[in-house]
């Protein structure tokens, strides 16, 4: 198991390095510069001064080395659009909010999604199955940018049950988390249903039944653990999807998260912000995938043993 983790760790570092380099190269190839090339207010001298101050006049490889060196110290640089703050500070403010929202959504999605999928599989071709799958189709078809305003308006404003926006306490999380999780609930429900049906038809479930086990023991001990494997594989990407997918939902509910910042930085060619956020999200993604691999290895003994991971 240790060897397995070690190998995964090496791969993770290589992946991160590739992402950093690619982000750097692509960012430098974006048209325009952070100081607004069409802006007439800057004289060429001032522009050159600014470029020099941010080190943008140096050759690319030197910029790259400096950038990389700073990154190793956890320094993403200073935002071009908000010079008062470093990118790290912006992340520190915004990310906890996005993360909280993401984790709550993911928990809702996993619990509800898996439950729906299991019910659908165990009541295969009965009304419970049909209604669960109908819910799933609806969940996949309604995008969050439609659901979020609807929830905010009806539940928040018209009925006044929950706050329609802002971020000031646990009850403020419910609506955005719901809006964010519905699509994932649907995906997980469908995946779990297919996976359960597949496992229920396996020979070893018949073996378990032939042992005289009760149906609940068969379901929990023999079916769910095997059926959940493919679900775990996609949990990593789904988690990252949820925290990056908060852009729209954060905007609708005026949540002070990282999503809005990301979009803005792209519009304004804010190199350090784009680079910082991309790399930051990549780290999150890669770490989550790494954790997923480890969890997968824990649940499925066949993975653990394979030499070299």
């Amino acid at each position, binding site marked *: 198991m240790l060897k397995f983790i070690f190998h995964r760790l090496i791969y993770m570092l290589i992946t991160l390095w590739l992402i950093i380099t690619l982000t750097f190269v692509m960012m430098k190839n974006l048209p325009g510069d952070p100081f607004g090339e069409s802006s007439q207010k800057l004289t060429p001298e001032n522009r050159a001064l600014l470029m020099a101050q941010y080190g943008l006049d140096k050759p690319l490889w030197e910029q790259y080395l400096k950038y990389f060196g700073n990154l190793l110290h956890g320094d993403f640089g200073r935002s071009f659009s908000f010079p008062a703050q470093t990118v790290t500070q912006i992340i520190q403010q915004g990310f906890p909010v996005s993360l909280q929202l993401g984790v709550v959504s993911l928990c809702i999605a996993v619990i509800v999604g898996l439950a729906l999928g299991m019910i659908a599989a165990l009541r295969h071709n009965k009304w419970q199955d049909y209604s669960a799958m109908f819910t799933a189709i609806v969940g996949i078809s309604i995008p969050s940018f439609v659901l979020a305003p609807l929830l905010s308006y009806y539940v928040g404003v018209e009925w006044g049950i929950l706050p329609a926006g802002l971020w000031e306490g646990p009850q403020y999380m419910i609506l955005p988390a719901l809006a964010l999780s519905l699509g994932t609930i649907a995906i997980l429900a469908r995946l779990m249903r297919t996976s359960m049906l597949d496992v229920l038809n*396996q*020979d*070893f479930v*018949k*073996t*378990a*039944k*032939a*042992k*005289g*086990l*009760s*149906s609940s*023991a068969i379901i929990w*001990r*023999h079916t769910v*653990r*095997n059926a959940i494997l493919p679900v775990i594989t996609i949990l990593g990407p789904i988690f990252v999807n949820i925290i990056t997918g908060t852009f729209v939902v954060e905007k609708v509910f005026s949540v002070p998260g990282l999503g809005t910042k990301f979009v803005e930085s792209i519009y304004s060619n804010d190199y350090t912000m784009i680079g910082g956020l991309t790399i930051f999200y990549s780290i999150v993604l890669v770490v989550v995938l790494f954790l997923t691999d480890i969890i997968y290895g824990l*649940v*499925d*003994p*066949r993975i653990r*043993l394979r030499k070299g991971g």
Partner: protein
Amino acid sequence: MSGNLLEVRDLQVSFRTYVGEIQSVRGVTFSVKKGEVLAIVGESGCGKSVTAQTIMRLNPSPPSVIKYGSILFEGKDGVVDITKMSDKQMESIRGAEMGMIFQDPMTALNPTMTIGKQITEGLLKHQGLSKNEANKQAVEMLKLVGISNPEGRMDQYPHELSGGMRQRVMIAMALSCRPKLLIADEPTTALDVTIQAQIIELMKSLQEKTGASIILITHDLGVVAEMAERVAVMYAGMVVEQGTVDEIFYNSQHPYTWGLHRSVPRLDSNSSEELVPIPGTPPDLFAPPKGCPFAARCPYAMSICTEEMPEQFTVSGEHSAACWLLHPDAPKVERPAIAGGIRA
């Protein structure tokens, strides 16, 4: 029950599907004596597995339905009719009084559970043992089925074991609660020939040790000759002939049984001789013929064969066959010598 452990009477099992009803088992009657090995042979789709799984009520319902008949079993609490038991009652019979071994040991074990856990599961459920006692007994069982280093194996997962090993584990699991009846559904089909022989040997010796009755389902006549005392030959959901091994091998009466014998290679046959397959295919069980199901493939078919189902004609003692040729008015047909006519 007069010495019988199990009596299956006129069992009819169907599967309801979207396109219609498949009559998989159409009136099967046989019995299993205490401590005997009964083989059920027949080609794929003849209903032998469905019959076996119905005895343990393992077929999911729906789609499967027991349409008629009874399965009497002499359990701990006297004779019970399996077809009338509730699911809850079946749980206390399965594993405890009947065990089952499946065809493919590669898929019949849970890949995410250790061997030890899978064996002790049944013990914990049926025998009310503590975890320690159950573990001890599981190690005993592994030793009994000839697995080396049983203590170490307890913590291993199925993928760490070979096919033959896994089948031994399956046998250990099925026998862990000392059931009176062991149903082995093609236990050697998925194994290498050398391993097949070992598994057969193992089952024979365990059967002698525990005195359990075995229903052995197979299409391998070699395995039958090796293990069984009595044989039931099934075709298209019916038992067409049954009797002792000697009767089925040396004095078979049903043309289908002859066909089976002729399609098996023999050591004493001339190497230039070709095997004779049975021409045609079994009837469609969506709409089985009203006469003898084998009539369409039978070289001896008479006009009555397609019209009316033959009854079970008694040949001698417990040897019976469902074939019109045994009717006193039927023309005498010489049994082909190659169909098991010669005593080895």
